[in-house]
């Protein structure tokens, strides 16, 4: 059962990551990048690394994507 969850999460991460790089709009890519982080949180937690999972949830999926979004907003203004 746990192997099935790992497999589904892993395939989901690969699909989301691939769809993130083929998006036309950059903001869609950033939202999908947050999805990649979310999938990795599940994987880290299943593989018994709760410290890394918390770090990834806070930094990887949370604040770095928001910093990307803010930077994108400033880029759009100056363009």
């Amino acid at each position: 059962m746990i192997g099935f969850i790992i497999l589904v999460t892993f395939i989901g991460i690969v699909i989301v990551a691939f769809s993130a790089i083929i998006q036309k709009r950059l903001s869609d890519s950033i939202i999908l990048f947050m999805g990649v982080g979310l999938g990795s949180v599940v994987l880290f937690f299943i593989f018994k690394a709760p410290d890394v999972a918390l770090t990834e949830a806070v930094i990887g999926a949370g604040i770095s994507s928001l910093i990307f979004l803010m930077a994108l907003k400033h880029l759009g203004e100056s363009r």
Partner: protein
Amino acid sequence: MNLKRDLPTSTLSGFALSGLLILTLLNILLQNMPDNIQTAGNELLKLNANEGVANAVTTVVVYFRGFDTLGEIAVLFIASLGLGLMLHSNTRCDIKAESNFMLQTASKLLFPIILLFGIYVMIYGHLSPGGGFQGGVIIASGVLLLLISHKEFEVPHSVIVALETFAGVSYVLIGLIGLLVLDTFLGNFLPHDISQMGMLISGGIIPIIYIIVGIKVGSEMSMIVQNLIKRSDDV
């Protein structure tokens, strides 16, 4: 897709060369692999019990690799400094539209809870997953919520300066006291009895250092977020 036009020859040859180097390195590593590679961390994990800290990861990050953590927060400080230098200006004008009423009300309700959770993760870093870095970034994300929802909100610069100076100076001071008392930088000079393992006050200097790291990371990340949001257009 025309591969030759989209990817220049130098890029392709660079990829090929680095792939070849990685394969060679992997081959050498696999041929000369030591027998005890699976048990390489066991020595450190045995030492972990001496410090009386329930979360072994915290002992590694703060105590065995404490000097690296000092370097990491220095790197974060330099990143915050560079962003402040590049984006800071006196004319602050950014968010033109008033934010949503729902967001304004909800942020007032949510900010204390986020702050409390960040402080909890920071203080319980030596007992449960998490610690200074994570707690500091959680606090910074709470500050980000306030910055988005309230147009006129701004973290006072003097508070950030005071917190960051206090945290950096006390980290180095604790390390130097350890050097004086126990002849090692960041030596655990406070009582850390093994029978206290799992209590809130246990592990000597390790929880104190993680709280200091949390204060420093929180103030630096808040400054980064504020500089990014309140940036004026004419820079």
